[in-house]
């Protein structure tokens, strides 16, 4: 009798759940959006540069496979980030249309998608390339999804300073995939992206400050104010200019890179000074746009120098540090 009652209750419960469960309206594009394709493209590009500048190279098929694993690992981080931040995303105009807040993808689907890709990308990179690169990829996913998204972002205005490391690791992963180790050159590439991240993101947060405040995220302009953020942007830009030139100063990159890094660094400081002296949303947007161009051009020049064999035109004393 009790069995009958229990099974009837269970059936009723299941019917009730089925009635509330909406069939998924997620399209393929929604799942691609969960991977944050724009962030992923930057990760792929910087990881590719890390692979190309490495002193040893794997077979192109292996290289492509390694790059694919790194890209999918980055996408997994994006999906896990969107799963965790769905409620915050819903409060911000810039992110309200993302697949979870708009209701097209259920949070559980995004979590399962992110975890599957994370485990898959790490496992395949380890099995097919090497376990050092795989371990580094796993650490990067953990750093972005847990350390940055769950811990730093909602708790400190230094969130993107420390969390920026996650975005800066890909060249080191690419290098590790090719060489099976770490090198000073790949660390310098990490350093360039790491120091570049704060002025880049703070410029964006300056003109999205109200949204961050509404969402309760302690970004620098929300906590310390716009004036202090502009001062910090200037300080980091002044630091970025010499850091950007380090690969050349250490003899890893050629003269074209050195001149580009110096010119880019000076322009970056000029935009930061302009923003510091005359605060305007338009100036912050200009700095944000220029920062993307700066990083893209620097890493492109590294690629070009490797292709035309001009990477050896670095400062002759540089390699003594290696």
């Amino acid at each position, binding site marked *: 009798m009790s069995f009958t009652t229990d099974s*009837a209750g269970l059936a009723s419960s299941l019917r009730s759940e089925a009635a509330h469960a909406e069939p*998924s309206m997620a*399209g393929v594009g929604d799942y691609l959006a969960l991977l944050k394709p724009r962030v992923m493209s930057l990760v792929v590009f910087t990881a590719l540069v890390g692979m190309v500048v490495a002193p040893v190279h794997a077979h192109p*098929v292996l290289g492509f*496979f390694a790059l694919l694993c790194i890209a999918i690992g980055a996408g997994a981080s994006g999906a896990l980030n969107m799963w965790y931040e769905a409620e915050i995303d819903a409060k911000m105009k810039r992110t309200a249309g993302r697949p979870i807040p708009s209701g097209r993808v259920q949070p559980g689907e995004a979590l399962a998608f992110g975890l599957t890709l994370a485990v898959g990308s790490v496992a395949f990179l380890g099995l097919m390339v090497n376990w050092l690169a795989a371990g580094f990829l796993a650490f990067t996913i953990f750093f972005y999804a847990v350390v940055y998204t769950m811990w730093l972002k909602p708790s400190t205005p230094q969130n993107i300073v420390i969390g920026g490391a996650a975005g800066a690791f890909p060249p080191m992963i690419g290098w590790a995939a090719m060489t099976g180790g770490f090198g000073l050159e790949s660390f310098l590439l990490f350093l360039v992206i790491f120091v570049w991240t704060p002025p880049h993101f703070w410029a964006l947060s300056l003109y999205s400050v109200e949204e961050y405040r509404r969402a309760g995220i302690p970004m620098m302009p929300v906590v310390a104010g716009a004036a202090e953020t502009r001062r910090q942007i200037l300080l980091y830009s002044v630091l970025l200019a010499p850091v950007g030139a380090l690969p050349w100063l250490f003899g890893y990159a050629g003269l074209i890179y050195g001149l580009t890094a110096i010119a880019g660094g000076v322009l970056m400081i000029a935009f930061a000074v302009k923003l510091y002296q005359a605060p305007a949303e338009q100036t912050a947007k200009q700095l944000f746009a220029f920062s993307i161009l700066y990083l893209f051009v620097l890493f492109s020049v590294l690629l070009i120098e490797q292709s035309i064999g001009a990477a050896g035109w670095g400062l002759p004393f540089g390699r003594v540090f290696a």
Partner: protein
Amino acid sequence: MSVAMSDQQNEPGIVLTAEQKRRRRARSIAIAVSLGVLVLLVYFVTIVKLGPGVLNRPL
């Protein structure tokens, strides 16, 4: 209990709209293509890793 069972059988369940069916089909095709690409990639990477040794084994 038999009444409950017959109720259950008569219920239509979840009926998908044409749009939902179309999206489910697109998702299914995407998964199939992804799995196919993964199989091919693993095959080629295995061949590359084994190199000439792939044909050099005692029979």
